[in-house]
């Protein structure tokens, strides 16, 4: 469904992504794990159209999205839930959700209320507080709102950038449970995470990115058992 082919992205003169290829099948949760500065966020931003790759392509189905402006990428069906959530903090919850559907607001007005209803049933913590300002929500609730807002675009692939960032472990669990729930409903997810353990538990497949390159790819279940992954990302000690 989503195919990234030999992407190279620069920030100024610095090469951040070096020959990165990956693919995500329909209905999968795929996670990208890596340390700080490995290029995870840049990778998602490149897929979302915020950064333009110097070479390489991104395909969604048969459509090449890698040279489109952001608004067309959203329209094509890729929606990014950014790092730090970035909700519209002085707008209400309901307005945040409505703006998530911006690209289809004119053509699809009728179904938007039903979709908001769906999102609220997915995130019951937001229900009954629709007119509350998003800035007054707790971190976990803001993350739920950000994901809900991303889903309002009805994306074919949902990109999540560090959904666990700055959240308490219990809240992280709640968010990841929701992701599993989303997968059951048929949503395709590509997620970047530093919390490798939590991410690998819910994901089908995983990629490990190091200094801008994919160093390992495989099934998430196998990665949890992999000694190298355990020592580098899961906090296990290697016993000689």
């Amino acid at each position, binding site marked *: 469904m989503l195919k990234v082919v030999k992407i190279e992205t620069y920030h100024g003169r610095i090469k951040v992504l070096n020959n990165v290829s990956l693919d995500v099948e329909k209905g999968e949760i795929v996670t990208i794990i890596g340390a700080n500065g490995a290029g995870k966020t840049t990778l998602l931003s490149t897929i979302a159209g915020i950064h333009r790759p110097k070479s390489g392509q991104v395909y969604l189905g048969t459509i090449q999205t890698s040279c489109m402006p952001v*608004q067309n990428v959203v329209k094509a069906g890729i929606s990014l839930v950014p790092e*730090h959530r970035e909700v519209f903090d002085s707008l209400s919850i309901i307005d945040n959700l409505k703006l*998530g559907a911006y690209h289809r607001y004119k053509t699809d007005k009728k179904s938007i209320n039903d979709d908001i209803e769906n999102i609220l049933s997915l995130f019951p913590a937001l229900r009954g507080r629709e007119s509350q300002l998003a800035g007054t929500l707790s971190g976990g609730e803001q993350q739920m709102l950000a994901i809900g*807002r991303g889903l309002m675009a009805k994306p074919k692939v949902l990109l999540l950038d560090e959904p666990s960032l700055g959240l308490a472990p219990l809240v992280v669990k709640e968010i990841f449970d929701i992701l599993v729930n989303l997968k059951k409903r048929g949503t395709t997810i590509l997620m970047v995470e530093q919390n490798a353990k939590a991410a690998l538990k819910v994901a089908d497949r995983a990629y490990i990115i190091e200094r801008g390159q994919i160093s390992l790819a495989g099934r998430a279940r196998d990665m949890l058992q992999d000694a190298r992954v355990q020592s580098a990302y899961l906090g296990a000690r290697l016993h000689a």
Partner: protein
Amino acid sequence: MSLSSELLQYLLSGLTMGGIYALVALGFVIIHNVTGIINFAQGEFVMLGAMFMVTLVNAGVPAAGALVIAVILVMIVVGLIEFGAIRTAKKASPLTLVIITIGLSTAIKGIALLIWGTNPYKLEPFTKGGPIHIGGATIIPQSLWVIGTTVLVLALTFFIFEYTYWGKALRACVVNKFAARLMGINPQRMSLLAFVFSAALAALAGIVIAPITYVTYDMGLMLGLKGFVAAVLGGLSSTPGAVIGGLALGIMESMGAGLLSSGYKDGIAFIILLLVLFLKPGGLFGTSGTKRV
């Protein structure tokens, strides 16, 4: 004339000019919030509104129709300007764009000079009738038009930003430009919208003030600068701040002119600008960012 009725008189004339400054200031703030540009051509949009109005009325178009046509004409002209001069330079820094607006201001003024010449034009007041007496002070009917229009336009602006989807999309750009882009909101379209909307505000301001001040090709400079002072007074990013800044500036000017000397009238605005920039650079209503992380 007792002091209290004198003060009331200054207050009323201050509110009249203040309403105009508020409309211009609102235009500054909307464009600045959405695009990061300080549009120094804002005053020329005021002049264009007044000039189109006078030309249409002199050509025999009834005032109400002329008003609507003049506002729409200014919106079209400004839309074309945004398309041709701002959008083509979208990769330039905001400072460069600000300088482009200064150039635009000079160009518009020059073209206006060629079309309409240096003579002042007169526009008849919207309604006939002598001055109205209120508690020892007098007010001309056109002042009521100015104040009424200001209130109406402010209410409409509030409604648009608070209750319509387009208004909310504009606000989303202001609150979080990055996230707005991720929603698929096209920043270029929002920039056009901000310019055209501000143009309408400016044109209306020019039209309602025209019967009080005469219409000249260079009337935009002072009104634009005063509107800018009002916007800075209000913090440059707050819409209620712009309105209060505009009214406050109008009243201070009128009080200063009345109680000190009318020669100081224009000086007062710029002394206020300097004081604000020295003492409270964030403006009286500058938003101090509160964000929960």
